[in-house]
């Protein structure tokens, strides 16, 4: 997920539409305050965040999250940027080609981040175990007892399974499990 935390409406909307043109597959969310950010960090796991360079303090929460790629927005080019930080800034005074080039770099960083690779790949073995039990109709509590883990862990696994497969309901998961031979029809 990509987050845009920029104060100016026009810049926020503009960046959002440019990002959408460059990549269709990621969720993009615009937020205005650090309060919204707090809520967002609780519910989701943003990976790439655009933020005004003069509001970094307000969004200091972000710097603690190591997995997040933080891109600062500058209204115009400054000379202070070293080659190191060039990937993590966006100067908005350029022409289309220049802006797209910068955004491409951010998206590359995002695509290549280890965290993302891990979280978007196939089901882990553990998740497959959980999916099997879910498909057989067991409740979270039953699964937890059977696999010797907490109910909370089961719920986390289920969330990840749903996110990876794009299937939300138990009957949908059952169909998936049968099609992929994780369970047999006779077991039902």
């Amino acid at each position, binding site marked *: 997920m990509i987050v845009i935390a920029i104060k100016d409406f026009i810049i926020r909307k503009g960046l959002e539409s440019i990002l959408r043109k460059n990549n269709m597959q990621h969720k993009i969310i615009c937020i205005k305050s650090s309060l919204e950010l707090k809520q967002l960090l609780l519910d989701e796991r943003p990976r790439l965040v655009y933020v005004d360079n003069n509001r970094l303090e307000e969004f200091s929460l972000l710097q603690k999250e190591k997995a997040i790629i933080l891109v600062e927005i500058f209204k115009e080019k400054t000379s202070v940027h070293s080659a190191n930080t060039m990937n993590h800034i966006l100067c908005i005074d350029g022409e289309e080609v220049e802006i797209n080039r910068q955004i491409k770099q951010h998206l590359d960083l995002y695509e290549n981040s280890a965290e993302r690779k891990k979280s978007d790949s196939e089901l882990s073995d553990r998740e497959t175990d959980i999916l099997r039990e879910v498909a057989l109709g067991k409740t979270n509590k039953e699964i937890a007892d059977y696999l010797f883990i907490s109910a909370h862990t089961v719920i986390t696994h289920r969330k990840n399974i749903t996110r990876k497969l794009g299937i939300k309901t138990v009957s949908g998961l059952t169909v998936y499990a049968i*099609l992929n031979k994780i369970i047999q029809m006779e077991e039902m």
Partner: protein
Amino acid sequence: MYIDKDMKMADAIHYNYLLLPVINRLGVQLGFGDKNIEKVCQEEEVDLDFFLVIINAFLDHDLNKTLKIQSVSIEKIVDYLKATHQFYLEQMIPEVENRINALIQNFDINQNQFLLVKNFFEEYKKELYLHTQLEEKTVYPYVVDVYQAYQSHQLSQELLDRIKDYPINSYAQEHSDIESKLFDLKNILIKYLPQPKHSYQRNQVLTALFKMENDINDHSRIENMVLVPMISEMEKQLLTKSAQK
């Protein structure tokens, strides 16, 4: 884009053909020539404001913008929502079913896979039916009761208890599962059924599902963003008044 009364009815359809069943349900049939929306509504005796609220709600997800929602009658909204139920049960469901059946007739998938998809959809059908029944037998009559009490300033004890125990918000969650199942079925067809020899039949099922999903989302949107807030506000005012007595 906001559609207003001066736009030609035909242009609205060209803009988004998914409006076709929507205008039908509102009482407008094809063959309106080059007349604008106002004129067509006048001739067909359809409430213009209501028409605009509904089609804009269908196109634009942000309802709060410009629409005269407050002026729309609750009874009309309920009638419209009932008409959408009828449309799902009598047209969309059979359409999807026929297209799912065509999968096996054309040997697009094997017997077991076919049964999986078919049973999944059967289950969905039952849920959708129960859901429409719940709304028509319980939720909508309640909505109309609240509306009438609000209009007439007469609140029975029975209704008062009902408002306290089962306010409109307690039904708001009902739609989520109906939408989730459709979403799942789409993903199963897109991603997880084995590759077909020819995609055509499967595309047909998917197109029907996408259309249905779009329409059902609109149905929920009208309930959650128009009906529920209006009724919720009336409930609040009725409760305040009864407390003052």
